[in-house]
C-alpha cells in the first residue's frame, strides 16, 4: 500500500516532466526516420526499419531511465521533501522501492507508446502484425529495469550530472563488454588474462538483452537463452537495488 502510494506519486511526478515528452518525441522521430533510411538502402528495407526502430526504442528508453532516474532520489533530498516523508511510519526500503517502481511504470507506458508507433510502421510495410518483435521489446524492457536500478543507486549518493555520467558509462560499458571477451580469447595465459577475465565477469553484459539481430533476421533462439537472459536481468537488478537500499538506509539527511 505504502510502496504503491509512493510509486503512483513518482509516476505522477515523472509524467509531468517535460524532458520525458521531448525524449518521446525524438524516439518517435527516430523510429519514423528509419523509414527514410530504408528508402536509401539497397537490400531488405523492412529489416532496416526493424533494426533502427528497435535500437531507437532501446537507446531512448535507457536515456529516459537515466535522466529521470538520476534525479529521482537526489531531488527528494535536495528539495527536502524526504524529511516529511521519512518521518512517517515507512521503511526507507519502501520509499526507494516505491520510487523505482514508479519510474518503471512510467517507462513501461513510454515503451508501450514507442512500440505502438514502431509496430504500426512495420505493419504498413509487411501488412502483418509481427508479434515476434515483442520478444525483442521484452528484453529491451528488462534492460530498462537494470538501467533504472543503476540510476536510482547513483541518485542515492550523487548529484544528477555525475549520476548521469556514471549510469551512461554503465550502459555503454554494458554494451561493449563483449569486446573484452574477444580480447581475452586472443591473450596468452597469464596474470593479465586472469585479471581481464575477473573484470569481464564483474562488468555487466547488456548484450544479454540484445536479441534484435536474431529476431529481425528470424534466426532461431533457444528458449534456454531467453530464460537465462531474464534471470540474469532480474538478478542483476535485484543486486543493484539491494546495494541502493544498503546505502540509502545508512545515510543522514542533513
Amino acid at each position: 500500500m505504502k510502496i504503491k502510494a509512493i510509486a503512483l506519486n513518482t509516476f505522477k511526478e515523472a509524467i509531468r516532466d517535460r524532458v520525458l515528452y521531448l525524449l518521446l518525441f525524438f524516439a518517435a522521430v527516430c523510429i519514423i526516420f528509419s523509414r527514410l533510411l530504408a528508402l536509401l538502402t539497397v537490400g531488405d528495407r523492412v529489416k532496416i526499419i526493424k533494426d533502427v526502430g528497435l535500437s531507437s526504442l532501446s537507446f531512448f528508453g535507457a536515456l529516459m531511465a537515466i535522466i529521470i532516474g538520476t534525479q529521482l532520489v537526489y531531488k527528494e533530498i535536495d528539495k527536502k521533501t524526504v524529511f516529511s516523508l521519512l518521518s512517517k511510519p515507512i521503511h526507507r526500503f519502501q520509499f526507494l522501492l516505491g520510487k523505482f517502481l514508479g519510474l518503471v511504470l512510467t517507462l513501461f507506458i513510454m515503451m508501450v507508446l514507442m512500440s505502438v508507433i514502431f509496430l504500426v510502421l512495420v505493419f504498413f510495410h509487411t501488412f502483418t502484425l509481427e508479434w515476434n518483435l515483442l520478444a525483442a521489446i521484452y528484453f529491451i524492457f528488462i534492460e530498462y529495469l537494470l538501467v533504472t536500478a543503476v540510476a536510482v543507486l547513483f541518485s542515492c549518493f550523487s548529484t544528477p550530472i555525475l549520476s548521469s555520467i556514471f549510469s551512461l558509462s554503465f550502459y555503454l560499458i554494458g554494451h561493449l563488454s563483449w569486446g573484452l571477451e574477444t580480447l581475452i580469447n586472443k591473450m596468452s595465459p597469464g596474470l593479465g588474462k586472469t585479471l581481464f577475465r575477473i573484470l569481464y565477469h564483474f562488468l555487466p553484459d547488456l548484450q544479454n538483452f540484445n536479441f534484435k539481430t536474431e529476431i529481425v533476421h528470424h534466426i532461431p533462439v533457444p528458449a534456454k537463452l531467453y530464460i537465462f537472459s531474464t534471470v540474469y536481468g532480474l538478478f542483476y537488478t535485484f543486486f543493484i537495488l539491494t546495494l541502493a537500499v544498503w546505502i540509502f538506509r545508512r545515510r543522514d539527511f542533513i
Partner: protein
Amino acid sequence: METALKTENLHKTFKLGFIPKKKAVLKGISFSVIPGEIFGYLGPNGAGKTTTLKCVTGLIFPDKGNIDIFGRPHLSLEAKEKIGFLPENPYFYDYLTAREFLRFCSQLFPKKTKIKSPRILELLSLVGLKEVADLPLRKFSKGMLQRAGFAQALIHDPEMVILDEPLGGLDPIGRKELRDIIVRLKEEGKTVLLSSHILQDIEMICDRVAIILNGEIINQGSLQDLISQKVLFTEIVLSGVEPQELTAFGEPLSTFGGRTLLKIFEEDKIDNVLRLIHSREAKVHSLVPRTETLEDLFVGIVKNT
C-alpha cells in the same frame, strides 16, 4: 513516569568540507517531554535544534545515545505512528494540490489508522487552506506552505507533534492562528515539542523549555522555575513633573508629548515618586513592574558562555 519523548546522551558529529573535518553538533543531549505538555526547544541558529529533531524523527542517526517515543525505540514504525513532524522551511511536491498532497500523506499510514476524506477537509479548514485546496503547491507562498506542512503533520491525529520553527515565515496573523492551533492541540491532550529561536512564541505557549547552545543543553525546566519572578524594575509613565526632579528616584528615559518614562530600580522609591506626583497634582499614565523574561534569561546565558 511515562514520557512522550526521552532522549539520553545524544552525540552527533558531522564531517564537513572537501577535506572532511569533524564537527561535533550534539554533545550529550538529554531531555524528556511529558505527555500533554508543550515543550519548547530553544537556541540560537546553529545550536543543534534541527539536528536533535532530525535524530528524533529518524532522519539522522546519532553516533551515540538513546531515543524513546512513548516507551518505544524511535525508529520503530509504532513510534513513528505516534508522531507528526513539521520540518523547518517545508517544501513539498509542487505539482500536487494541497488536497492531493494530504491524500498522498494519508496513504503512508497503516490501514488501521483509517484517514478519510472528511479528515483532509477538516485539516485544510483548520489551517486556513480550504479555499485553495485545489491549487498546486507551487503557487503557494511560504506561509501557505507552512500551513500545508502543519496539516500533513496532523493528518493521522498523532499523539505528539514535533514542530521545527513552526512560526517562522508567517505574518503576525498567521502566527497567532498557528499559535492558537498549538494551544488547542494541548487542550485535546496532545504533546507538542517545538523548536524556535523566537523567544516570545515559546514564552507565550510553552510549559517547559530546554535551552541548547553549541550542542549542549545549558538549562531546562518549567518557565516559572527558570525565570525569576522578582521584579527587576518598574516603568512609570507620568506627566506634570519635570524630568530633572525625577533623577533622585530613578532614571528618566525619555520625554515625549509632555510625558516622561521613568525607570525605577528600588521598590521603596515607587511610593516616594507617587507621593511627589500627587502633591504636584500631576498624572500617572501607566505603572508596569518588569519581571525577568525568557529573553533576559537567554541573553544572560549566551553572554556567560
